[in-house]
């Protein structure tokens, strides 16, 4: 507060600061309650001793046990992990290269690449799903985990590129040039100077993509074969055609997993001593 401000103004400022927007705060409180209640319900009923999905009858781990004895679900978990891992590596490699190329490539190719990488971001997933399904069928490719991986990579490249592009643009190109003046080749400058500077953003986007792909349902649903199916697709069928409480246990574990990963993605830039993990998400 400015001590030289005239007394009445100071009093007014103090009053303004104390004045809380009661309505906005009330809405926010209700919002938070409704945001977390559904998640809390899933977690709570995953520990239910009874089969009921509405009445809680004591604590038990039986649904977790049931999951770890269900070979179909375990197979789906394995497939989801495999797909997420491959999609993460593939989309990060392609996406980082694309981000570097885009920022530095002012030619016609750069313009075209910049344009087409924006399209997936405004395309609803169901459209991407339909399009991928048609393409695979058209090329005569049998649907299996490989087709899910290809579709997920296609969907994820744009995210990696968007996250990385602003970071690349923020780099000072003179540092790279200085490395080259000191005798490094383009490639060496890229590998020894640029990529290390981008490492936090690369790691954060990798974790983010892993979480997004692992949780993704729509694309997986359109591009998976019959057996095995990704975990999210199994969950969908389970919810649609009669819910077993096992689903609550699977859901709880998936929640724990994705919340850990997102926490990690937000924390990584901070671990490297940079501010603003959140702008990863708001895309700024």
């Amino acid at each position, binding site marked *: 507060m400015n001590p030289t401000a005239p007394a009445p103004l100071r009093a007014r400022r103090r009053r*303004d600061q104390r*004045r809380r*927007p009661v309505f*906005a705060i009330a*809405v*926010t409180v209700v919002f938070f309650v409704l*945001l977390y*209640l*559904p*998640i809390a*319900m*899933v977690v709570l009923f995953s520990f239910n001793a009874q089969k009921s999905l*509405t009445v809680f009858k004591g604590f038990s781990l039986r649904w977790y046990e049931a999951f770890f004895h269900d070979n179909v679900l375990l197979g789906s978990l394995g497939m989801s992990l495999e797909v997420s891992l491959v999609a993460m590596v593939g989309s990060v490699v*392609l996406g980082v*290269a*694309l981000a570097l*190329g*885009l920022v*530095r*490539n002012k030619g016609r*190719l*750069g313009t075209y*690449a910049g344009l*087409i990488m924006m399209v*997936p971001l405004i*395309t*609803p*997933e*169901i*459209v*991407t799903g*339909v*399009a*991928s399904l*048609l393409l695979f*069928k*058209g090329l005569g490719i049998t649907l299996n985990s490989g087709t899910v991986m290809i579709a997920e990579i296609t969907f994820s*490249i744009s995210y990696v590129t968007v996250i990385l592009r602003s970071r690349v643009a923020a780099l000072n190109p003179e540092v790279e*040039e200085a490395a080259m*003046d000191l*005798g*490094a*080749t*383009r490639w060496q400058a*890229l590998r020894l100077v640029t990529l290390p500077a981008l490492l936090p953003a690369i790691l954060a986007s990798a974790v983010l993509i892993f979480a*997004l792909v692992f949780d993704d*349902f729509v694309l997986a649903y*359109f591009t998976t074969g019959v057996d095995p199916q990704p975990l999210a697709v199994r*969950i*969908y069928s389970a919810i649609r055609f009669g*819910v077993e409480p096992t689903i609550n246990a699977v*859901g709880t574990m*998936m929640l724990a997993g*994705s919340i850990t*990963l*997102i926490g990690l993605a*937000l924390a990584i830039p901070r671990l490297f001593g940079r501010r603003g993990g*959140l702008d990863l*998400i*708001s895309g700024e």
Partner: protein
Amino acid sequence: MALRTPVRTDGPSDSRTVRRDRRPRPSAAGARIWTWLTLPGTVWMSVFFIASLLLVAAISFGTTDELGDPRFGTNLGNLKALADPAYRDVMLRSLGYALLTSVICLLIAYPVAYAVALHAGRFKNALIAAIVVPFFANYLVRMYGWSVLLSDDGPVLRMLRAVGLAGAHTKILNTGFGVIAGLVYGFVVFMIIPLYAAMERMDTSLIEAGRDLYGGPLRTFLFVTVPATRQGAGAGVVLVFLPAMGDFVSAQFMGGPNQIMIGNLIQDKFFEGQDWPLGSALTMALMAVLLIAMFGYLRRARKDEAEATR
């Protein structure tokens, strides 16, 4: 050591050339590396994304053979079928649901973003993280929890009945309101984030000025805060509208057969009905609506920007 022997990348020029003159004109070979980096991703996206979208467009003119497999063709029947009242109504309903969802998200997100951005003090970052993190939890699981919460004998309706706000037969699930509630729950974060960013950027002395000019809290909010954050709101509307329009999970989990959306039709044509050409035509219609929305938004945003810089 490799670093000491510079590899001349700019052609057979005189090796005595002073290194400094490399800087003003980037060499052709040096620039080529950026092309090589751009190419793999661009080719991948062109094949697996752009080409596949064009395939959807082509198949929407196609027919099915006896086995139900799609065949290319020049058949306008699928596009004509879109005007069929059965499909038209579903498309209009989807449009209505998506628009209502955007409006409700705006009404929720404004107070929340306002409270968090301007009145949360040092808890600001923690609160915004607390809003964002659940949205990375599995969409199906969240939607399932939401449908349990809003079910006929779920906690929300039981509470509303207890305080007399709901009758014995009031339902949320299997109504249009249920589907919209699902869409709002699914996508409201996409409204909060851009609004929050806009409020953070906003010059708060504007609000003080509004108060100094004897504007009440509501008037100041409507005539100062809202116009100052209009761009964030516009971005949020687009970010909510796009996924809401294409969603089919909410209508399935929260609605009944009378609340299906265009996404459900597409899913049905591809998985149950085996009419891929018609499914493709529906997909194209969906894409067309979204492109129009996007185009309108971009034009508006550009106009706003031009006005702001004038």
